[in-house]
């Protein structure tokens, strides 16, 4: 089997020609389900990700919390965010594995100006193709979850790739394989939704009335989904957006404004051309020169 594995593309950044696979029978969409209620915050997903992708995250300092590193970086594509949620006498320790949500309608891909720098495979995975990335940071503006990070060294954008190099040969992503309690589950999106349903039923039986699936339709659903104990308040989980969507500004910026602007420019150019052709040049006539000479002459005296 050739080493150069390839997936079919469903979308390709900055490409006006739709990728050939768009029409064909798509591969089965996959999804990674993160069941926050089963997550023990052991960070196996972090070290598995660091090791599989050979990332060289520098060793930092503690800021007094368990969040290490404290934010996603170009060399830490997933980080655990710990939230101590106190309500009444009860205390809950909500631990959420942050990282790319692999949106079905990726804001990063929509914002990206470089052709082929961001692609979405037919199974839903959104991947950064570093060769084509120009480091402009538009993906940071496009992403509703603030995930992509731009490297000061390589001027390229980096994020979780959902281990596309493993999935393409039938392996689970490194984090899903490692997760001790299988809080991180990987499979077809339908299976994951079904599995989430079972988990939500179990959570409801344990008193979490608002347990639910976080699969925000604002981005047409995501290929990384959460099961949350408090699905009615996602922002409890260290700022998980309550209803994430691609910012309307990005919508405008990358939407209708593009063709309109080109049309305007084309029209302006065409108008000038037509004007010139119909009206002819605005010449200085002999008469003007004489009148000018008069003015110039009379002053000479």
């Amino acid at each position, binding site marked *: 089997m050739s080493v150069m594995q*390839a997936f*079919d593309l469903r979308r390709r950044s900055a490409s006006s020609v739709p990728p*050939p696979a768009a029409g064909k029978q798509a*591969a089965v969409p996959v999804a990674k389900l993160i069941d926050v209620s089963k997550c023990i915050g052991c960070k196996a997903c972090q070290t598995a990700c660091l090791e*599989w992708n050979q990332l060289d995250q520098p060793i930092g300092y503690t800021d007094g919390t368990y969040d290490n590193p404290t934010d996603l970086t170009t060399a830490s594509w997933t980080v655990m965010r710990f939230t101590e949620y106190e309500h009444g006498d009860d205390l809950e320790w909500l631990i959420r594995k942050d990282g790319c949500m692999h949106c079905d309608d990726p804001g990063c891909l929509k914002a990206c100006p470089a052709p082929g720098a961001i692609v979405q495979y037919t199974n839903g995975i959104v991947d950064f193709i570093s060769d084509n990335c120009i480091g402009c940071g538009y993906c940071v503006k496009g992403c509703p979850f603030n995930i992509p990070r731009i490297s000061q060294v390589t001027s390229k954008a980096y994020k979780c790739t959902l281990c596309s190099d493993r999935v393409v040969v*039938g392996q689970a992503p490194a984090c899903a394989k490692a997760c001790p309690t299988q809080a991180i589950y990987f499979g077809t999106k339908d299976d994951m939704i079904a599995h989430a349903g079972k988990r939500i039923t179990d959570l409801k039986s344990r008193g979490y009335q608002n347990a639910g699936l976080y699969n925000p339709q604002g981005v047409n659903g995501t290929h990384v989904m959460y099961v949350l104990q408090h699905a009615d308040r996602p922002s409890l989980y260290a700022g998980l957006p309550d209803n994430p969507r691609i910012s309307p500004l990005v919508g405008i910026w990358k939407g209708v404004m593009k063709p309109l602007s080109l049309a305007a420019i084309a029209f302006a150019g065409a108008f000038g051309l037509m004007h010139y052709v119909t009206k002819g040049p605005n010449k200085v006539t002999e008469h003007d020169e004489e009148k000018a000479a008069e003015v110039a002459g009379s002053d000479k005296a």
Partner: protein
Amino acid sequence: MAVTRRQFMKVSAAGLAASSVGALGFMGAGEGLAAGVRPFRLEKATETRNTCPYCAVGCGVLVYSSADGAKDSKARVVHIEGDSDNPINRGTLCARGAASLGFANSVNRLQYPVHRKPGSDKFERVSWEFAMERIAKLAKEDRDKNFIAKNRDGVTVNRWVSTGFLAGSACSNEAGYLTYKAIRSTGILALENQARI
């Protein structure tokens, strides 16, 4: 994993089949060939079954090592992940196990015997021969000087309590048993391991 292997192969196989067709260029220009996904880096590695060195759950791990086949190139561990066949951990690993490649290849791995003279402020590299010969001599010297053949009541006790041996709890059973044989036969009573603390 919820997905059975067969079902999962369908997911990637469908992708593969279509794309290999695409890769062969049957479907349109360069646009068709998706940007290549990073090649699967374990393709040429050797897989060995092992157990994680850290805690007593005893998770099964797959150690992937690869040497480039040159005459004297030394194989290096390139990746470690869980062994899906092991019923105890079913392929999962914790933060330590998942990073245990970093233990095998740590820059803090000891490389060669070193020796610190009394009062010195640094280690100096020495040969195995020098180290082992000197250790054996020091041990024999201390044993011969302090060996207690009989106690105050004249009972044969054959014990040597002026030297201790703190045994490694991550040594294999075979190494542990051999250590027991070699050390207990000298009469050492101060033989302990991490179970105590």
